[in-house]
C-alpha cells in the first residue's frame, strides 16, 4: 500500500466511524481533538486501526500518535509485510 492509499483509506474509515467530515483531517491536525476522542472513544480508534490493518497499537505507542501524519506514518511502518 502506498502512503497516499493509506491516507485515503484511513480518512474514509475514520470519517465513517466518528461521523466527522474527512476534510477536517489535515496532516498536522491533532487526531484526538479533531475526532473529539475521550477515554471511551479512544479505544474505538485503536479498534478500527486493528480491524482494518491488523495492527495492534500498544498504549505506549499511542502517546506518540498526536497528528494525522503521525497516524499515517505509524500505519505505514507497521503494516504486516
Amino acid at each position: 500500500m502506498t502512503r497516499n492509499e493509506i491516507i485515503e483509506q484511513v480518512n474514509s474509515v475514520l470519517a465513517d466511524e466518528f461521523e466527522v467530515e474527512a476534510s477536517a483531517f489535515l496532516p498536522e491536525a491533532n487526531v484526538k481533538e479533531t475526532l473529539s476522542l475521550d477515554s471511551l472513544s479512544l479505544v474505538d480508534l485503536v479498534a478500527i486501526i486493528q480491524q482494518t490493518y491488523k495492527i495492534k497499537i500498544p498504549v505506549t505507542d499511542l502517546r506518540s500518535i498526536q497528528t494525522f501524519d503521525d497516524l499515517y506514518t505509524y500505519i505505514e511502518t507497521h503494516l504486516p509485510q
Partner: protein
Amino acid sequence: METIPIEALIPQRDPVLMVDELLEASDDAATTSLTVRDDNFFLDEEGKLAETGLIEHIAQSASALAGYRALRSGAKEAPVGYIGEVKKFRCFRRPAQGEVLHTEIRQGAEVGGVAIVDGKVEVGGELVAQTQLKIYVKPD
C-alpha cells in the same frame, strides 16, 4: 474447564447477580449461562426478561471474563467493572421465564482500562440479543 464459582469472578450479588456460570474462558473470549428465574430483578410485567436485563447479563458476562483473567494473573478479588457504553444493541426477542441463556463474549481492543466487548445471547441456538459494550475495568 474447572468450574469457578461465579461469586469469585464478579462482584455483583443478589438481587442483581445476572450470570449463573462461566462455562468456558480463554484470553479474550468466554461463554456464560443464565436461567431466567421467577425472581429475576429484570423480569418484566409480561414474565419476560427485559431488554435492560439482557444488557446487564452481557455486561456481567464480560466482567466474568475480566474476573477470570484477573484471578489467573494472581489477583485476590474480581475487579469491579462498569458499563461505559452500549453500542449496536439489538433485542430480537425477550427470553421467557425458565429459558436458559447462553452468551458468547469476545473482548477486542483495550486502552486505559476501557475494553471493547462484543456479546451475543442465544436461547436454544436462537439469537435473542447482541451488542457491543465498553467496560471500564477497575482493578480492586
